[in-house]
């Protein structure tokens, strides 16, 4: 069992545990957010192991660096020390959801068993050069759409969060 595989399992366990920590932590929203960060970072490590370097970096920069910080910002802004909610009412729903989740999981496991072993990666795979070329040649339309989406999101967030539009 080579080093990358070990690392993969370590980070996988870390990711799962911290994800659970986020979902099941009903007392402390900030802690939940922070454990989400741990998941993100673990995932980015796994991306590195999967030769997706740029994606790994972006993962950390955007998710850990921006998105979750935004979450924290909002939590602190609203000063939610603990989220004092009773757990959701619909117990049956929960049960059914859990069942369906398990079933789906089983299904996925069953259908994703025995994938072929991945071939060696070509040079520069996952690097910013190759990815950039792909983005700005084959997927340039996608990029344009994304830019449009971001603009719309900025405006929307402003409209939503501003007390009164002046």
């Amino acid at each position, binding site marked *: 069992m080579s080093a990358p595989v070990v690392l993969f399992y370590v980070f996988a366990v870390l990711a799962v545990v911290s994800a659970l920590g986020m979902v099941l932590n009903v007392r402390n929203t900030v802690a939940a957010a922070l454990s989400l960060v741990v998941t993100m970072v673990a995932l980015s490590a796994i991306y590195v192991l999967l030769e997706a370097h740029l994606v790994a970096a972006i993962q950390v920069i955007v998710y850990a660096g921006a998105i979750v910080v935004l979450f924290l910002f909002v939590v602190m802004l609203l000063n939610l020390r603990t989220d004092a909610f009773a757990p*959701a009412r619909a117990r049956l*729903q929960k049960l*059914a959801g859990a069942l*369906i989740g398990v079933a789906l999981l089983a299904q*996925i496991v069953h259908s994703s068993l025995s994938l072929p072993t991945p071939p060696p990666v070509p040079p520069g795979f996952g690097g910013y050069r190759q990815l950039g070329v792909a983005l700005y040649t084959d997927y340039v339309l996608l990029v344009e759409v994304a830019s449009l989406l971001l603009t719309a999101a900025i405006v929307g967030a402003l409209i939503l969060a501003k007390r009164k539009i002046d």
Partner: protein
Amino acid sequence: MVNENTDAALRWIPLLPLAVAVLHGVMLGLVRRSLPRWAVNLLSCGSVALSFGVSVYAFFRLVSLKDDYRWLTDSLYTWFGAGVGDTRFSAEMGLRLDPLSSVMTLVVTGVGFLIHLYSIGYMADDHREDRGYQRFFCYLNLFTFSMLMLVMADNLVLLFLGWEGVGLCSYLLIGFWYSDRWNAYCGSKAFIVNRIGDFGFLVGIFLLFGAFAKAGSPSVAFADLRGSFELIKNLTMPAPFWGPSWRLVDVIGLCFFVGAAGKSAQIPLYVWLPDAMAGPTPVSALIHAATMVTAGVYMVSRLSFLYDAAPLASAVIAWTGALTALFAATIAICQTDIKKVLAYSTVSQLGYMFMAAGCHGYTASIFHLVTHAFFKALLFLSAGAVILAMHHEQDIERMGGLARRIRQTHLVFLVGVIAIAGFPPFSGFFSKDEILVATFASHVPGHLVLYAIGLATAGLTSFYMFRLYYKVFHGECRAPADVREHIHEPPGIVLNPLWALAFLSMVGGLIGFPVAYGKAIGVKDSHSLDNWLNKVVGYISYHVPHETEYAMAATAIGVATVGLLLARFLYLSRPELPARIAASAAGLQRLLANKYWVDELYDALIVRPLLLVSDRVFYRAIDAGVIDGAFVNGLGRSVRGFAAGGLKYLQTGLAQSYVFSMLVGAAVILWYLAR
């Protein structure tokens, strides 16, 4: 030869009036401001005058061409096409000018131009409608355009476009003063009756194209039809119900004739024409003389090659024409509305033309069409002048003795009367004479009877026209005093076109100066119209000895004279007699006065049952009951009940429940995919 036979100038003949019409339409419909009158006059009359000029130019180009290649074409673009291969249907937007259509173009634009001029004066004091003046001229130009398309089309479909166009314009113009319900009704009547005819016309087109497509040369262009007519000449079709199979040519010819009967007011579809008098008088003139009603005649002669091969259809046409002529003439005797009289005379003259066409005397019918265009336009316009003078009084019982008051009008009207009554050397004489000769010499079953009917009609025509003339212009004036004071000669803009037309009605006959007389005075083949047309509609197929021809002319003149004298005796020297005659023969009088109750008959037989069925069955039962009740509202009701009953409880308002249902759906799909 092709490059020599194409001329891009042709397109301007219909295009100019269309352009002006569109301009007017835009001004009226979109800009909602009407141009000043002088601009309207300039544009409308100018455009028609210009296209008249172009027609003259084209005419001379035709003359310059060689006899066997005497046509001009101007194909613009493919209007629409369908299908592929040897059943390809394609309707070109192409114009074709051959001798026949050039004659028609000249008549339409020339007479049309005069009528436009006249309208300036006639509509001058018309303030009934909002922007009515410009609207009127817009319709007039559109009318001219449609007629020109009709006569210049190089294929049947395009001809049908013009055909429908004139129908539409007649509707618009007859109902021009739509604020009066009666006018609107007359417009609709004209339109609907025309539609009935158009239906036959359409069927004819379909059959014809189908036949040619089956024969392997699918086309609707006249040149091709004529060229490859041999292919379908002897085709037959099974009888729809029973009996021997029919000759396709006859069927097609009859179908086309249905259309022609609709447009050109033949029995049984003539009923719209007298009511068309509801429109302004220039419109009546335009419809009767220049544009609309001649369409049928033109179409029949255009398809002469077809009718030459269709004896049955020709016979039907001839007989229908003859009966129409007589029938309408008898009605005309008892009419008291000046325009009605003229209208029925038009019907009967058209009957004449069809009679000639049915007897394969296409040249004769076209000849009569031309001359009739002249003097009928003249008559209508001068009648309009009379109406103007009488302050929109149309009842001849309230007129009389106008000869002294409006001399010029009286003179031109008299010219028209003489022309239509058929006294030499006025135009009507030659054309009517030629028609009679054609009928006499033709091989249509019972052509002698037809000849007799024609002769009688000639006499009747002369009679009722002079009756009209005497009742209007002679005897003591029966108009109410206040009107009598203000009887005045119409302005010059009204009179000048009348003089022009009068001149034409006098000398117009010379274009068809019969060969017989030509020999007499030593002019070789003097029948220029025949020489002009024979490549298109075939030579005059009848030959009668000149003596017979003289004799027939003499009889015709005699009959006309009889009519004249009778009218003079009854309405000038013994004006009290007619009333007594009417009293003695009350039934006949009422029969004629009420036009044989044909309208009432149609009303009872067709209109009322149709309305009844539509109302009771189609509207009340099917539409309102089944479609609306069962489907539309029923569906809505059931959906509403269902949704309000149970569906709404899915709307919990809790986002998470929605997410949950989404999840379930996604799970199912995923399971299905990964299964």
